[in-house]
């Protein structure tokens, strides 16, 4: 029952943020394979292509130009094939209302993006751990809601 490689997608328009995430993922104990996208449009093109491998986990920056994290989320929720995809929305700062909004639109996890890389590593480790529990312990996905 050891975790297989978790296939992760991440969309963020900021190059530095993408690099931070990449480094954080590399340092985590669980095996991950991460693919990055520079904006929501590129991401949705990938997700809409049925022949491409399905990720288990998707990280979405809330604030992206062209297509925001929430717009992507709304589209994703309409695709049957993606119903077991765990969606993590993150932002450097959001109001309580925005956070609740992301949950209402179907996000599973909301992260406030930490300023320091060490904290980011810890947070991502926690996300992967929770996601792993949901994928292997038969927990109810309808109630899969966490704010970290």
């Amino acid at each position, binding site marked *: *029952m*050891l*975790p*297989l*490689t978790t296939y992760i997608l991440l969309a963020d328009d900021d190059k530095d943020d993408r690099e931070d995430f990449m480094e954080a993922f590399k340092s985590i*104990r*669980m095996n991950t394979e991460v693919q990055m996208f520079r904006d929501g449009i590129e991401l949705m093109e990938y997700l809409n292509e049925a022949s491409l491998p399905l990720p288990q986990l998707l990280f979405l920056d809330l604030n992206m130009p062209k297509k925001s994290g929430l717009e992507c989320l709304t589209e994703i929720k309409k695709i049957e094939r993606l119903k077991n995809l765990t969606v993590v929305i993150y932002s450097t700062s959001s109001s309580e209302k925005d956070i*609740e909004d992301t*949950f*209402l639109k*179907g996000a599973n996890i*909301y992260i406030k993006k930490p300023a320091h890389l060490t904290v980011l590593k810890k947070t991502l480790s926690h996300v992967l*751990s929770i996601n*792993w*529990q949901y*994928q*292997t*312990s038969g*927990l*109810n996905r*309808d*109630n899969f*809601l*966490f*704010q*970290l």
Partner: protein
Amino acid sequence: MVYYLKYDVQAICKRIVNEQMSKSGLKYSLLNTHELAFDQIITEESLELLNRGFNKLGIEIVSSKKSMLVQKIKEAIIGFVNLEDKIVLSKTSSYLSDTLNYSYRYLSAIFSEVTYTTIENYIILQKIERAKGMIAGGEFSFTEIAWKLNYSSVAHFSTQFKNTTGLTPSSFKRIINQRRRNMLENIIS
């Protein structure tokens, strides 16, 4: 004239295992030449069948004792969290130790090694999961839920709920109910 045969044993084994596994139709992953991982539970019968094919080739699949023990630990925990209406168990360490016949220290070590989390965290996760189900069900108050899950007070329950999920029980309830309403509206419209 005698020629020497050089074997790339790793490559050979990998090839054989992959060929054999692709016949089974099961989704699997070969972690290295010695570990075969599945993302679902494989029944005894399936394992038997797989082994019959492999044994002919001189290979044997050995179920990982550690994984099986972890599965038993999880089942024991899910059992006492969900089976009774009210959780009465306080000393979970002795319960697990007695039920599974290993020292708690050993159980903890194996659990953490295989699952990347601790038994304590897993117990809390299962309790909170049950709480979420009860909150979403709408039948019980937070006081009743806290009591059923053996928390000393509603405050203690709320604190652990918030620590685990990042949301207060009230926020969670509000969001779940609103999500349900949104879904119903979408179906109707």
